C-alpha cells in the first residue's frame, strides 16, 4: 500500500515538473520578446520568473490553473455565472440524463440483439457505424434539429448527444454479458422447464452484471464528453463546454485549462463512484474478495 502511494506520488511529481518545464519553454518566446522591446537581456532565472504568471500564457502553469480552479469553485458563490461549480452542475445534469437515456437504449438494444437474429443483423452494423461519425460534426445538427422540432433550451439535445456516445459501450458489454451463460447453465434452466422470462431474469441478467459495470464506467465518461461537445457549438453560455469555448474566444487559456481540469475531475469522480457501486454490488453477488 505504502509502495503504491509512493509510486503514484512520484508519477504526479514528475508530471508537474514536466508541466512547469514545458510552461517555461512555451511561454519564454513572449517573455523574451517583451524584454527585447524594453532593451533588456534576461538571465535564465529571470526568464523562468517571467514565464510563471503571464496573463495570456501559451501554457498556463499548474499554480495558475489550480489557482483559477480554487478561485472559481471555492471562492465564488455557486450561483455565480463565473463559478465552475455552477457550470459543472449544468454539465453534470445533462450528462446524467444522457447517460440514463444511453444506458436504457443500450440495454434494450442488447436484449433485442441477443434474442433476435434479425435485430442482430440489422442493428449491430448501424450501431458500429454510428460510432464512426465524428460527434463534433453531428452535435450542431442535433441541436439545430432539436430547436426546429420546438424543443426549448440546450438540455434535451445535449442529453441526446451524450446518450449517442454512451449507448454503444453499454450495448456491446450487455450483448456479451447476456450471452455469457454457458450451454450447461442454459440446459439446466431447460430441465426445470423455466420460461423465457425466468431464463432472462434469473440467469442472463445476473450473469451480465459484471459486464454491465465495465460498460457503465466507460459509458459515464463518454456521456460527459458528449455533453461537453454539445456545449461547444456557438450560442451555449452555460456548462463546462461553454467555459472552454468562451475562454477560447477571449484568448484566456487559464480559463480553458481550468474548465478542462474541472471536466476531468468530474469524470474521474463519476468513474470512481461507479467503481464503488460496482464493488458493493458484486460483493453482494458473491464476488470473491
Amino acid at each position, binding site marked *: 500500500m505504502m509502495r503504491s502511494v509512493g509510486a503514484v506520488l512520484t508519477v504526479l511529481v514528475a508530471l508537474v515538473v514536466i508541466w512547469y518545464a514545458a510552461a517555461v519553454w512555451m511561454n519564454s518566446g513572449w517573455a523574451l520578446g517583451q524584454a527585447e522591446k524594453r532593451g533588456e537581456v534576461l538571465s535564465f532565472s529571470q526568464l523562468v520568473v517571467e514565464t510563471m504568471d503571464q496573463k495570456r500564457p501559451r501554457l498556463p502553469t499548474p499554480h495558475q490553473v489550480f489557482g483559477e480552479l480554487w478561485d472559481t469553485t471555492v471562492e465564488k458563490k455557486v450561483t455565480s455565472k463565473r463559478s465552475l461549480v455552477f457550470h459543472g452542475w449544468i454539465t453534470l445534469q445533462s450528462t446524467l440524463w444522457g447517460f440514463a437515456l444511453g444506458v436504457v437504449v443500450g440495454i434494450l438494444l442488447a436484449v433485442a440483439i441477443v434474442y433476435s437474429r434479425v435485430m442482430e443483423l440489422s442493428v449491430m452494423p448501424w450501431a458500429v457505424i454510428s460510432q464512426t461519425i465524428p460527434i463534433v460534426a453531428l452535435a450542431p445538427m442535433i441541436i439545430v434539429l432539436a430547436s426546429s422540432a420546438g424543443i426549448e433550451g440546450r438540455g434535451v439535445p445535449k442529453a441526446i448527444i451524450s446518450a449517442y456516445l454512451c449507448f454503444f459501450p453499454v450495448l456491446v458489454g450487455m450483448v456479451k454479458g447476456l450471452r455469457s451463460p*454457458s450451454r*450447461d447453465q442454459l440446459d439446466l434452466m*431447460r*430441465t*426445470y*422447464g423455466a420460461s423465457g422470462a425466468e431464463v432472462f431474469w*434469473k440467469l442472463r441478467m445476473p450473469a451480465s452484471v459484471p459486464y454491465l459495470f465495465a460498460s457503465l464506467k466507460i459509458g459515464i465518461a463518454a456521456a460527459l464528453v458528449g455533453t461537453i461537445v454539445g456545449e461547444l457549438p456557438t450560442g451555449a453560455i452555460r456548462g463546462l463546454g461553454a467555459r472552454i469555448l468562451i475562454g477560447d474566444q477571449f484568448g484566456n487559456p487559464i480559463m480553458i485549462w481550468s474548465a478542462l481540469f474541472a471536466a476531468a475531475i468530474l469524470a474521474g469522480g463519476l468513474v470512481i463512484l461507479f467503481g464503488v457501486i460496482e464493488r458493493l454490488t458484486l460483493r453482494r453477488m*458473491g464476488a*470473491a474478495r
Partner: protein
Amino acid sequence: MGSVISARDLSLTFQTNDGPVHALKDVSLEIGKGEFVSFIGPSGCGKTTFLRCIAALEEPTGGSLTVNGMSADEARRARAYGYVFQAAGLYPWRTVGRNIALPLEIMGFSKAEQQERIGRVLDLVELSGFEKKFPWQLSGGMQQRASIARALAFDADILLMDEPFGALDEIVRDHLNEQVLALWRRTQKTIAFVTHSIDEAVFLSTKIVVMSPRPGRITDVIESPFPPERGLDVRETPEFIEIARRVREGLRAGTVDA
C-alpha cells in the same frame, strides 16, 4: 418392477459439415424403478447423448423413448428428473442455499417450503451449515454435492448424472461415490450415471451399460451381483474384479471393431 425409462431402437444422427454423425444407433434399454444404471464407454460413444435424450435436451431422430410412461419432453415438463452436469454449474452470484432454491422458485414453491427443502437436501449431501456460503468458498467436491442437492430439491424420482465426479481427484471421488450410494439407498431414486471410470461404474451400479463409438451403441449390459449395501472394500473382492474385467473387455471389443 416396471420400466421407468424405456428406449427402443433409439437413434440420433447429427448432420455436420463432414457428413452425418451417428451419435446413437439402435439403442434399446429398460431401466427399472430404483435401479442405479451406469453408462461407460470412450468419448463419442453416445453415453452423454443418451442421457440428454432422456432429459429431452436432445431430440432422437429414430426409435422410441418413454420416461415415466410419457414422452421425454412431457417428462421434462412434468419435472420427472433432476440433472447433474459434469461442472457443478452453481450460479456464482447465488449462495448455496439460493442455488438450491433456483428450481424451487421456478416451480413455484412457497418461501417456507423452499426453506424447509433447502435444509433437508443440504442435510442429505452433508452440507448443513453451508447454506449462506457462496460457491467459490466451497471445494470442488462440495460444489458438486451442492449441485446434487439442487437436483434433489424438487423430489424428482429420476436423477440423471453426467460424469458428476469426472473433474475431481481420486480420494474425493471415492468419498462422493460412497455418499451417492447412501443417498440412493435412502431416497430410492432411479439413477442414470455416466462415467469414464470402470471402478466407479462397477462400484455404484445395479446395472452397467457398456457402450462403444461410431456409431454409438450398447455392446454389453452387466447386472451387478452386489447388494445395495456395499462398502468401498467390495472393490477387493473377486466378483468385483471379474465384473471390472468384463467391462474392460466390452470396452476393448467396442474399440477394436471401430
